[in-house]
């Protein structure tokens, strides 16, 4: 019974932290779907959004604003920063690079990563800034069934809820709104979309803005978990296997990928790790992704890759 309880605990913990990776992966998917850009800067964008939010919050609270007002204004400020970033990236990097191949675009987003990291630290500081928007303690459920109960972290639950709402919202946005339809049109064929009068520059701005806002949401959760600091940028590397397993173009895929990676790596680390030295979860996620790709080269939910000569 103890073993089962522990296994459930690891499984649930893993699934939940996988969803937290999904929050970051969603931003990647949005941009890849609409513009074919593999956006390495997503991690840096989470850092930027987090720093903008937490610094604004601290300043407002210090100046006597009530907490709720500070949170609303802080989020508005961070959103404005993300909008500016989205505009700058679209205007100066992605716009001019239209029609380049995927690798060039990918590398340009690494360039963008450097710029964002440098600028964010220069403007907002390079210290660690605590952010407490969500509770971080834990529930112990089913204590009468399993000795010690099963630990469920409240922050993880919040993260899962937010991710669920986010995915639902994005799905509605993509399927039901005019802009959403335009987005899908651009994603399918941007030249055709352009010729029927869809403003491509605007659409790309919207996509980057959406990714920026997703980054902001991820920053609220991850900032609470870690404190807002530079290391948040490393989340990009944790989100990549999630992305690959789910498929680069699928929003629900990002969530599914997160669940698989999270559960897989935690179970591997706890049960396999001790016998081979531990610390395996980093590469285990990637090996998992590799295994999935060998079976389905476009990820679980990605669009089928059709090649023609």
């Amino acid at each position, binding site marked *: 019974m103890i073993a089962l309880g522990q296994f459930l605990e690891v499984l649930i913990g893993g699934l939940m932290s996988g969803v937290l990776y999904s929050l970051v992966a969603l931003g990647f998917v949005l941009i890849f779907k609409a513009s074919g850009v*593999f956006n390495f800067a997503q991690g840096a964008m989470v850092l930027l959004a987090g720093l903008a939010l937490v610094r604004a919050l601290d300043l407002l609270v210090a100046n006597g604003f009530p907490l709720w007002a500070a949170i609303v204004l802080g989020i508005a400020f961070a959103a404005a920063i993300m909008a500016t970033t989205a505009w700058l990236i679209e205007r*100066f*990097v992605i716009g*001019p*690079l239209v029609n*380049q191949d*995927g*690798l*060039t675009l*990918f*590398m*340009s987003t*690494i*360039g*963008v*990563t*450097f*710029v*964002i*990291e*440098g*600028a964010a*630290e*220069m403007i907002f500081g*390079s210290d660690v800034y605590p952010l407490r928007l969500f509770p971080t303690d834990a529930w112990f459920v089913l204590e009468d069934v399993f000795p010690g109960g099963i630990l469920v972290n409240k922050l993880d639950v919040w993260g899962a809820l937010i991710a669920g709402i986010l995915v639902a919202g994005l799905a509605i946005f993509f399927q039901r709104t005019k802009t959403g339809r335009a987005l899908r049109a651009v994603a399918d064929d941007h030249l055709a979309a352009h010729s029927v009068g869809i403003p491509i520059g605007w659409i790309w701005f919207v996509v980057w803005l959406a990714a920026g806002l997703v980054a902001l949401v991820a920053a609220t959760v991850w900032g609470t978990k870690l404190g807002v600091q530079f290391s948040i940028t490393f989340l990009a*590397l944790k989100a*990549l*296997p999630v*992305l*690959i397993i789910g498929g*680069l173009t699928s929003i629900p895929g990002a969530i599914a990928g997160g669940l698989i990676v999270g559960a897989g790596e935690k179970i591997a680390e706890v049960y396999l790790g001790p016998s*081979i*030295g*531990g*610390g*395996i979860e*980093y*590469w285990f996620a*990637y*090996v998992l*992704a*590799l295994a999935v*790709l*060998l079976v389905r*080269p*476009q*990820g679980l939910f990605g669009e089928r*890759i059709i*090649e*023609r*000569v």
Partner: protein
Amino acid sequence: MLYREAGQFKTTYVEDMAIFPIRQDRIALAVLLGIAFIGVPLLATFHIWPFGSDYLLWAILLPFLILALAAIGTNILVGYCGQISLGSGAFMAIGAYSAYKLVTGVHIPLAWLGCAISIPPLSVLASILLGGLIAAGVGILFGIPSLRIKGLYLAVATLAAQFFFDWAFLRIPWFTNYAPSGSVNAPELNFFGLIVQSPIERYLLCLLLVTLMALLAKNLVRGNLGRQWMAIRDMDIAAELIGIRPLYAKLTAFAVSSFIIGVAGALWAFVYLGSWEPLAFSIDRSLQLLFMVIIGGLGSIMGSFVGAAFILIVPIMLNLIPAELGVPLSTETIAHFEFIIFGSLICYLLIKEPHGFARLISIGKEKLRLWPFPY
């Protein structure tokens, strides 16, 4: 007028197939090699400006040469064969740690067979080259998925190699000869009795190896194999239809590329760092190499050198300039500016010339040919 091949007649096929068929190119190359092989050592021996201190040799030229070699390896895979890899750092690590194991002697007890594999300590040069070969073997292994996985998906899949080997060299004490901290030291660099120690000797050693390897790579990509790689890169299905075997072409690209990267890794560890830990070959190194290749120009050996120089030297320059100009900026601000300017420069270059410096060079040549009336 200076750069015009009019009047240079080729009378044999051999002449036509030379690496540098144009006389001016040959002269330029000879001058360059002369500077590298004779000029630099002379200046450095007599401490003539700008070689007043070891800085230029130790901190610029040495890493430049080794990383340029690694960039050539990466370029063969990414630029010539079109297989995007983010695992170059791992292959450098494999080269480094294999060479370390070979140079200190390998002993693998096979208890269930009642015997053991024992290799006595090998010489440094043999270890470095064998380290490259081992990297090539592992490269082939990790190249197999490329037959099925393509493009950016493959890039992420190669990260599996990167993170796995980061972990393996950190966690498996056998690789580090059970060093308590997991950090290992390079052996004495003894090349047939010649002990390479001073910066200038290290520089010459690397220069020699890099020149040889670059020549090898250049000839490979001009030949049958290189043409197969490029056909695969341009469109693999079409290449298959005209009779190129993707299995053979892709795996040879992985093998050759990993061999060169592995040798570069061994040099990086033995000659440049002297003592290292897996972090020296982290994902950052892989990204750095990919940058060198892309900024330098995909599918260009010369581009790899220029790219390596750019990616290595520009951040250092950006870091040095404010202090030398006497701009009163804090170290922190300078570092932030370095990031911002470097990132912007990369984006700017990618926008202005997505094919990298190699393309700029060929445009320059075209213009020179039409000089004094270029258009």
